[in-house]
């Protein structure tokens, strides 16, 4: 269920990061309020717990084993917002460190398994459990059904995300990312999750909850951990704000502003070539220097409309070409500057008698 790198297009990946971000933000705010200072260790250790239970092989009736996600379980014990954070952290560590799921796909994987799964799972659980006793059998049944629905909702979403890839991202008849259309991706995912993976998730959830009911019932009556000594939180120390982001933002604005000229329907202002320039009334003449050097500028990028970009290229491709050209231009300046600095430093140390 972990989508690896390369299965979904960068556009999909970015959209999925965007989908997960507001949930992360709200979850962060909610948890901070609910749990005061204890947040950090509690979240960290339950993320570790989430990670660990994903490693268990759960025997399924019929003789196979499968891994569970445990998102609904986390939501029942810790609350749905904390579940979003703990499962997300576990997924991030899996992706970064254990290669389980792609790094570009972290947004998608978190949205599927850390947002949709616990939310849907917990909502179903809550609808079925209603006001039953926290230690009742009904809660167990609700947890089993809830987690089953949760993981299948999540699987449906994965099938959808993979299935739309060949629809939107195909070139010259071949698929660029995951190749299977919706009609194949969704049934494949659902078949696996309605049976084996769904069973594993439900089994893990029910059995752990039963164990908690038996041995740690207090966990089901209060939320957010226990505090032996209530220690109030201090006013947050004021960290100095450093405006280090100014430079990157400026560079980004410059790079992104370049193709805006395309959007305006004509040439970018200030970047007319000689021919356009002579037609413009407000300038009226062509600076001879410009005319002279224009051929040089035309050589590498031909006024940013690259000769090797196909004539039938889409607007997006033209914009991309534009941005890339700007990136190469600015980047080359940086390369030259830093190469010179490195070189001069090397030379200086070579000549210096104290160098070791």
């Amino acid at each position: 269920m972990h989508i690896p790198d390369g299965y979904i297009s960068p556009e999909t990946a970015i959209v999925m990061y965007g989908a997960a971000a507001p949930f992360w933000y709200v979850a962060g705010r909610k948890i901070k309020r609910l749990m005061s200072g204890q947040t950090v260790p509690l979240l960290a250790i339950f993320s570790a717990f989430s990670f660990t239970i994903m490693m268990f092989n759960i025997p399924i009736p019929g003789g196979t084993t499968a891994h569970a996600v445990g998102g609904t379980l986390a939501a029942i014990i810790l609350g749905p917002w904390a579940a979003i954070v703990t499962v997300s952290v576990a997924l991030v560590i899996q992706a970064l460190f254990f290669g389980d799921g792609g790094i570009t796909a972290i947004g998608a994987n978190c949205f599927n398994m850390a947002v949709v799964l616990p939310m849907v799972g917990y909502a179903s659980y809550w609808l079925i459990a209603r006001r039953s006793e926290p230690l009742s059998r009904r809660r167990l049944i609700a947890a089993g059904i809830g987690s089953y629905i949760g993981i299948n909702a999540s699987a449906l979403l994965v099938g959808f995300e993979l299935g739309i890839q060949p629809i939107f991202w195909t070139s010259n008849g071949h698929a660029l990312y995951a190749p299977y259309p919706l009609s194949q991706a969704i049934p494949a995912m659902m078949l696996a999750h309605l049976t084996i993976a769904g069973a594993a998730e439900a089994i893990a959830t029910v059995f752990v909850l039963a164990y908690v009911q038996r041995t740690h019932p207090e966990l089901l009556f209060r939320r957010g951990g226990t505090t032996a000594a209530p220690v109030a939180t201090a006013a947050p120390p004021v960290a100095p704000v450093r405006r280090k982001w100014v430079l990157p933002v400026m560079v980004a604005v410059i790079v992104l502003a370049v193709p805006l000229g395309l959007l305006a329907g004509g040439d970018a202002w200030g970047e007319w070539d000689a021919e356009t320039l002579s037609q413009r009334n407000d300038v009226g003449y062509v600076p001879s220097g410009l005319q002279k050097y224009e051929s040089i500028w035309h050589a590498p990028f031909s006024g940013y409309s690259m000769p090797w970009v196909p004539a039938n290229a889409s607007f997006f491709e033209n914009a991309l070409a534009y941005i890339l050209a700007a990136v190469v231009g600015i980047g080359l300046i940086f390369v030259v500057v830093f190469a010179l600095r490195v070189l001069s430093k090397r030379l200086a140390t070579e000549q210096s008698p104290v160098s070791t």
Partner: protein
Amino acid sequence: MMATTVPAEAGETNITNEDAEHVFQLDAVSFSYHGRHEALIDVDLTIERGEQLVILGANGSGKSTLLKMLDGLYRPTSGTIRAFGQDITDVADDPVRARELHRRVGLVFQDADVQLFSPTVYDDVAFGPLQMGWDKERVTREVARALEQMNVTHLSDRAPYELSGGEKKRVAIATVLSMEPDVILLDEPTASLDPRSSAVLVDVIAGLRDLGKTVVVTTHQLEIVPLIATRVVVFGDQERRPVASGNATEILSNAELLIRTNLVHEHLHFHADANLMHSHLHGPEHHEG
């Protein structure tokens, strides 16, 4: 005092009266968890500046609770605690004063895995100084010094889970030393260490005196007592309060006391045809060789 906003050098400012003889003064202190389980009952105890006090008691005699209370983590159910001449009974309510207390009193937990929660040894030793709001230069200096003093500089970019039991303990002590505490509280430092690491650690603890620290150690292992104690207080596991106080020789030679407080056991051994009732007691003389 301490009217400034928080990270402003929570350093040497005053909870305190520097000349106070008594580092801690407990007056009729009791503590119970959730109003039920009584961990400490009516404890009177005074700890002097510069002593190396060993609190001896069987498991469950309330030693760990006492240390957490001295560090302001637990609030007594009744009674008063003074530290450095000031009342700290309700210090947990005032984060600024609590933080100052945490700086001056370093607590080394029994379970090093709980104390070492950062990705690397260096980050762990720097955690305390950073929370104190010290500037980067001071943090770097104190961390380097603490690592040096505990002889763990070579481990600084290791992850805690890569360390041996003895190394973990020394790093744990470094994590509180980097805050320049006046007092160091060690909860069962040699429990679950092999004999050799245990011996190294005992040397380290004895060395803390040379750094001018007041040291309070809880233990139930009699063999380390004469090596580190300038004074011993025995907690009774029934009484949940001190039942005896004295130097190591006095306490360890009092077999009746040690048996009564469950620190040594007596049982029957069958030697040939004679039934000998004796206790497994090793007095201080056992260690002087």
